[in-house]
């Protein structure tokens, strides 16, 4: 039986490797598209972050343009290098939308006098929340104003001979004990999701070709009349689908590595370099094994669907629905952080693989969870393979017309 499986596997691999369409969609596209996508997404997010925190152009309205107001703004600019003072504007909306400024300020009359007397002053901050560069800059500007308020309060208290310490009776001292850097969070959200979806869908082109495609090309019947048992033929095809499923993951990861090499910030959405992972080797191996098992489960399901389908097109239709079945559990756990993973997630298909990977990326060792994910994955492999074998033996599916 092993000899026959090997013969079928070798032939299927050779046959599919000559199919440019399958090769392109499973291997070449991820290597080319992923870096481009990552660079575009990462680059645009990085740019967006820069617009929110850097080069905050501020202008006065013409109505409040006085020498003292200009001095006030210049003082703010001196406090923070990201503040850039622009010429006063007539129409705030036009100035913001024509990208002349990000924020417009209107100061009440006599504000300078009030400030000198330590009286509250009204500063009207005009922005357009529909524009990231304007709405996003509000927080940064307000933080500078907070610093100014604190500085004024300290100055006043000193004048009155009171210790400024009374401004903060409770002092917060932050200690971040996360085992992974903040900049890894995007990777923790996206990498397990990417891997799970790719493992699940990577084998689809091969699965479609290997049974439904053979039915359509009328090559399946002669194959079934050769000496090997149906199980040998099935396992040979099953292994081929697995190879393509993992090849697509490897090519995607290669694409991500290329994106990282071009611009390391793409994998963290501009929040610094990724790194600082501290997974235990055994846990990492177990997670990879769980991913392998997930790929095997989906290969079995794809083979069963391909066996059921009458034609290539019918198979593609069914398998496109399978993609949605993967996306639901995958996206529902997208924002789940490693510490928030619930025990049930380790036994739900797809979720279990994603959870295992999140643990690894979060530097958390939870062997109970990994064991649950492993056992449940093994059960799913057995079920899917049994289903595929059962359908492959059934005449009503094999010769459905």
């Amino acid at each position, binding site marked *: 039986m092993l000899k026959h499986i090997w013969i079928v596997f070798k032939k299927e691999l050779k046959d599919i490797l000559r199919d440019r369409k399958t090769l392109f969609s499973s291997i070449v596209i991820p290597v080319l598209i992923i870096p481009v996508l990552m660079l575009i997404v990462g680059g645009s997010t990085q740019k967006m972050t820069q617009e929110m925190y850097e080069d905050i152009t501020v202008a006065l309205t013409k109505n409040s343009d006085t020498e003292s107001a200009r001095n006030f703004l210049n003082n703010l600019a001196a406090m923070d290098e990201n503040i850039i003072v622009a010429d006063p504007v007539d129409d705030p909306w036009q100035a913001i939308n024509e990208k002349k400024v990000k924020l417009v300020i209107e100061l009440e009359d006599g504000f300078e006098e009030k400030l000198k007397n330590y009286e509250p002053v009204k500063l009207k901050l005009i922005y357009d929340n529909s524009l990231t560069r304007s709405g996003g800059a509000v927080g940064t500007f307000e933080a500078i104003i907070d610093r100014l308020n604190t500085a004024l309060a300290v100055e006043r208290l000193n004048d009155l001979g009171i210790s400024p310490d009374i401004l903060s009776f409770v002092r917060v001292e932050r200690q971040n004990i996360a085992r992974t850097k903040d900049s890894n969070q995007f990777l923790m959200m996206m990498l397990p999701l990417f891997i799970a979806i790719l493992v699940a869908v990577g084998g689809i082109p091969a699965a479609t070709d290997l049974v439904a495609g053979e039915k359509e090309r009328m090559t399946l019947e002669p194959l079934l*009349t050769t000496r090997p048992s149906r199980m040998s033929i099935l396992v040979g095809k099953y292994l081929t689908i697995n190879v393509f499923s993992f090849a697509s993951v490897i090519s995607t990861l290669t694409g991500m590595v290329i994106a990282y090499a071009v611009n390391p910030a793409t994998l963290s959405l501009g929040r610094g370099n990724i790194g600082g992972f501290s997974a235990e080797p055994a846990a990492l191996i177990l997670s990879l094994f769980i991913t392998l098992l997930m790929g095997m489960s989906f290969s079995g399901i794809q083979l069963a669907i391909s066996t059921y389908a009458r034609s290539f097109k019918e198979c593609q239709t069914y398998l496109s629905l399978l993609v949605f079945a993967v996306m639901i559990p995958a996206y529902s756990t997208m924002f789940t952080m490693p510490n928030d993973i619930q025990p049930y997630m380790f036994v739900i298909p797809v979720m279990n693989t994603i959870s295992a990977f999140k643990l690894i990326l979060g530097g958390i060792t939870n062997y109970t969870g990994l064991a649950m994910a492993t056992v449940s994955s093994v059960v799913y492999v057995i079920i899917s393979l049994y289903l595929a074998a059962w359908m492959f033996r059934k005449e009503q599916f094999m010769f459905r017309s």
Partner: protein
Amino acid sequence: MIELKNLSKKFGNITAVDSLSFTVEKGEIFGLIGENGAGKTTTLRMLATMLAPTSGTAVLSGHDIVKEPEKVRGKVGILFGGESGLYDRLTVAENIRYFGELNDMSIDEIDRRTKMLADIFDMNDFLNKRAGKLSKGMRQKAAFARAIIHDPDILLLDEPTSGLDVSAIREVQNFILEQKKQGKTVLFSSHTMSEIEKLCDRIAIIHKGKLVALGTIDEIRQSNENLSLEELFVRLVGDKHDA
């Protein structure tokens, strides 16, 4: 030798093949005749062990199709329909080699047989070309070579000339006659009466899965007022069709 013993096949409530019993002797060319849907392909599929009989069985070269399907498959060469069923992305040689390997032949044996068959079918010019690039006639030759690479005792051919042009049909017919000369047993289905008359030692006419006539063409004609095969077929099948 092929021996059918009350071979039957049901698909749900439909009886596709109904208790077929006949024997095809070694070295005989035997024609299975019937209308579309008469049960010819189902019968051949059962003999090829692709479908399991609902009841009854058949014995091919001493092996029971129900009990020893893998041994049966090693003894038969199969070609279904005018479509060749070749893998387009593999070369002709690779197609042949694949089936040789699946039938447990050694590489040396496959190479030797491939060379021999390439000479017989005049395939040397396109042996290393991808099957998808070949003409229909070339593909048919390649399919025949692939079907007999393991030197089977029995050939099961389901409408092998369907959709072929005149010269390709002639080649197929010559191939069938050549197999007979080599002592092979050939069971084939066909719609073409002239082809049946030209090739078959004996025939079986089936209608709605049932055997309605069995014997040499002359025997069947003599028992039916010496009608031509075509008239005979229409009478045997048409009468029951009308009834």
